[in-house]
């Protein structure tokens, strides 16, 4: 409500305040906003830098141009065609491109942007080749033809506002969190059930749909389409709009679009007054202003503006939480079984013939000197590496070759050696990622806020998890502000939010001070007492020996010893592995060898 009223007033009042010519500029800015919405979604959140959004805008524009001009049908059918074409092309191109890693992805987007642009120009028949299609009909709303800039503004601004609402809903939903996790926290997201490629594709298709709508608006605003505005340069400008406005925000799209579009207009006024008609300096001035904005507001302009807006105090979640998962708890027998597990990297056997079993409610420690293969083992168990030999079973279900986000892994949750958190998000938002497998709402449901109930429950569960690790009063702090010890706890809270029966902790004590380590040990003991099964990899001997029920020692990828801490501690082979042989023994061996020679 607080946001709605001022926006509604601005929406209705604006045409009265601005001269008709500025409405034209605003019209272009609104069209660009639709495309930049998509860019902020995929680049700002999912981390996909796309240099091809103008191509999707072009698809939208051409689809409606052909439908309304060549086929003589209503522009609203053109909108449908625009959406269909843009999303279909995105599904195809996206399926091919989103799996690409690193810089290959933006290059692929550049590649098809250029290819599509050239094809658009070369197809002479239906799309009209390089001259394009003219005399497109205006959009008709309830009998009124939108020919003037003002009429068009109402439609365009309305659509921009609606899409802004949809995207804000999405940002606060499970899909939104999963998408954001792709950018900085992808391995963690995967371990909690997010399929990165699928998420990226969804975001990609949505972005293309938005660009397609932008294209539809453009076509009926100009009433003329040709390939020229849908080239690589345009894609780059859209990206600039996104970065300048605030790449990870929703309102930033409009801010960036308005700034860039408006700037061109302002420069047309200002520059001739300063420099006369002699030269043409618009692009120079634009470049300098862009650099200036980047220098003083590297996060974009919207975050700067947002600081001055009243911040809403988030409400504490209340009510019921998510239903428990009950995964993998029933039944006798070991919870986790590993048999003959092996991993070979070329000639190196990082792990070989490793077998272990964990009983429900146990705390099992996995230790060994550096390079023993502990983290590799962890990764093999959690699906981050593929075993070259052996098997992994959880509650009887074979997990050996499954990806980390596979549903069969539900019931296992892990933490990471270096905290994989979203530092720009709140603690609660980070924890909520853990509930991904426990919630169902898809992207469409999230857009329209149909997931409100489920989301509320998830937030309660998240708070619960924070309470269990003692971080509840920091729920709305940014995770990046936490000291390392608390960040590790946060990771554990996130894991708990998944309601696992097996908790895998990867060096949870690394980098902690003594007091923090003791608190951590207490927490783990508490969790085990509540029925959690824990497998932990650790270096700190004191911590491990006083905490775990059983210990497995690894060395050179193999199991060296196994048993209760006291027994393993005194095992000579273990001692040797850690400390090496005592000097006298080495000397003695050498003497013996010489004597034999």
């Amino acid at each position: 409500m607080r946001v709605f009223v001022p926006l509604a007033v601005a929406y209705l009042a604006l045409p009265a305040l601005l001269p008709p010519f500025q409405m034209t500029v605003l019209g272009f800015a609104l069209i660009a906003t639709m495309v930049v919405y998509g860019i902020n979604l995929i680049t700002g959140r999912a981390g996909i830098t796309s240099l091809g959004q103008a191509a999707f805008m072009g698809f939208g524009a051409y689809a409606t141009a052909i439908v309304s001009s060549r086929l003589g049908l209503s522009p609203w059918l053109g909108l449908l065609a625009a959406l269909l074409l843009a999303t279909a092309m995105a599904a195809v191109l996206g399926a091919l491109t989103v799996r690409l890693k690193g810089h290959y992805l933006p290059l692929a987007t550049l590649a098809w942007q250029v290819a599509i642009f050239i094809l658009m120009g070369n197809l002479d028949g239906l799309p009209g080749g390089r001259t394009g299609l003219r005399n497109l009909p205006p959009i008709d709303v309830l009998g009124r033809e939108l020919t003037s800039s003002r009429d068009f503004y109402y439609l365009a601004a309305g659509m921009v506002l609606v899409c802004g609402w949809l995207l804000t809903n999405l940002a606060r939903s499970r899909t939104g969190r999963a998408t954001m996790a792709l950018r900085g926290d992808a391995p963690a997201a995967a371990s909690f059930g997010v399929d990165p490629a699928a998420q990226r594709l969804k975001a990609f298709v949505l972005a293309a749909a938005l660009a397609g709508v932008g294209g539809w608006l453009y076509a009926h605003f100009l009433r003329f389409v040709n390939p020229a505005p849908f080239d690589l340069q345009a894609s780059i400008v859209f990206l600039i709009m996104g970065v300048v406005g605030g790449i990870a925000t929703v309102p930033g799209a409009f801010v960036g679009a308005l700034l860039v579009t408006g700037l061109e207009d302002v420069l047309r006024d200002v520059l001739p007054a300063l420099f006369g008609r002699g030269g043409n300096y618009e692009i120079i001035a634009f470049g300098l202003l862009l650099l200036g904005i980047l220098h003083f507001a590297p996060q974009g302009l919207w975050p700067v503006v947002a600081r001055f807006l009243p911040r809403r105090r988030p409400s504490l979640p209340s009510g019921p939480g998510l239903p428990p998962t009950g995964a993998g708890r029933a039944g006798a027998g070991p919870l986790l079984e590993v048999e003959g597990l092996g991993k070979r990297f070329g000639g190196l056997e990082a792990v070989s013939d490793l077998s272990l079993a964990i009983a429900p409610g146990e705390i099992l420690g996995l230790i060994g000197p550096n390079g023993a293969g502990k983290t590799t083992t962890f990764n093999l168990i959690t699906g981050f590496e593929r075993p070259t030999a052996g098997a992994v079973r959880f509650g009887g279900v074979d997990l050996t070759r499954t990806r980390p986000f596979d549903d069969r892994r539900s019931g296992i949750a892990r933490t990471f050696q270096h905290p994989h958190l979203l530092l720009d998000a709140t603690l609660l938002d980070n924890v909520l990622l853990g509930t991904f497998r426990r919630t169902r709402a898809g992207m469409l449901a999230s857009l329209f806020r149909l997931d409100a109930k489920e989301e509320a429950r998830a937030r309660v569960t998240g708070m619960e998890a924070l309470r269990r690790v003692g971080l509840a009063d920091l729920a709305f702090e940014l995770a990046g502000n936490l000291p390392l010890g608390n960040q590790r706890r946060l990771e554990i809270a996130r894991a708990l939010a998944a309601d696992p029966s097996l908790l895998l902790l990867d060096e949870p004590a690394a980098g902690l001070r003594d007091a923090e380590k003791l608190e951590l040990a207490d927490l783990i003991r508490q969790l085990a007492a509540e029925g959690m099964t824990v497998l932990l990899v650790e270096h700190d001997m004191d911590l491990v020996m006083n905490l775990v029920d059983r210990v497995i020692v690894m060395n050179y990828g193999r199991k060296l010893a196994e048993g209760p801490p006291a027994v393993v501690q005194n095992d000579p082979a273990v001692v040797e592995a850690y400390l090496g042989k005592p000097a006298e023994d080495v000397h003695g061996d050498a003497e013996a060898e010489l004597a034999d020679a």
Partner: protein
Amino acid sequence: MRKLLALLSTLALAVLGSALGQEPIKIGVVISETGPAAALGIPQKNTVVLWERVINDAGGISGHPVEFVVYDDATSPDQAVQAARRLVEQDQVVALIGATAIPPTLSLQQVAAEAGVPLLAIAPVVEHNDWSFQITRATIDMLHAVAEHIAQQGHQRLGYIGYDDALGDDFINGLRAFEDEYGFEVVTDERFARTDTSVAGQVLRVLSAQPDAVFIGASGTVATIPHRTLVERGFAGDIYHTHAVLNPGFLQLGEEYIEGAVVPSDPIVVIDQIGEGFPGLDVGREYKELYEAEYGAGTVSTQGAYAVDAVKVLEAAIAAALENASPADLGALRTAIRDEILAIDGLPGVTGTLSFGPDKRVGVDFSTVVLVEVRDNDWRFLRDFTE
């Protein structure tokens, strides 16, 4: 210095105009000062700036000072629309001149029709609506001249290599229209981009079709690249260019390679070599003298000529319109100007004699086209078509 003068003169104009009680008449100009068509647009802008002074020094139009408001469209239809709407709604111009390239001109036509403002197109668009007229000689007329030469030389196989954009399309489509009548065939359609660094593959393809002559559908200095490659590969036949190469840069960069190139042209380029009796000679000479005094020797071009002809048409039309309509009623004045343009018949222009009518939207016709060729790195008049 020039910029300062321009600024001061604009201010002076505004002050003077209001002091005299005669409002300035504003004419909107949308051309490409930047972007791929900049080479063609800059002479147009220079002409407009120059002619504004010429007109005002002579007392303006019917006593009203004239102001040309010039915006750059960066060779983009979007920018052209924005510029045009601004001119029409904010600057309140009585007429529009523009644009340099075809796609922006198409969108200008739309704006002109919606706003009821007469548009004088200085790009060779093919279709016009009720409000748009064309000053630029139709591409088809230029190609007609080339076709005449082809037939005259007895060429039967014509190779084509041109830009991969609307301009390149226009040229080859135009040439194909003359195939039957003049007994030749366009045997290749190779394309390249203005920014390409090499056209070796395309040229080889053209040569492999064994043409008698080649037509290069490009502009300015860029056109020297395929020409040079053809010559280096041993092609000895006639090489034709478009009228968009008629600038000093082409001659300079082409060096000795472009010797003998045949180019259809407007008379302005070889105005000193044309015999008396040719229509528009005086007007052309006057323009050349004034332009080159301002911008340097040898800088006169066909693009600038189109701009000045557009200005002349408006000068005549506005003067006539002011007898019946007043600047106070902008809509009526614009309509009156449009009607006066339609009534223009036999106006002497630099490009030729300008005439318009309800079915005649292009001002000049084929009769004032000339053919020129490159001799000793300069333009040499070859023939005209005044019969």
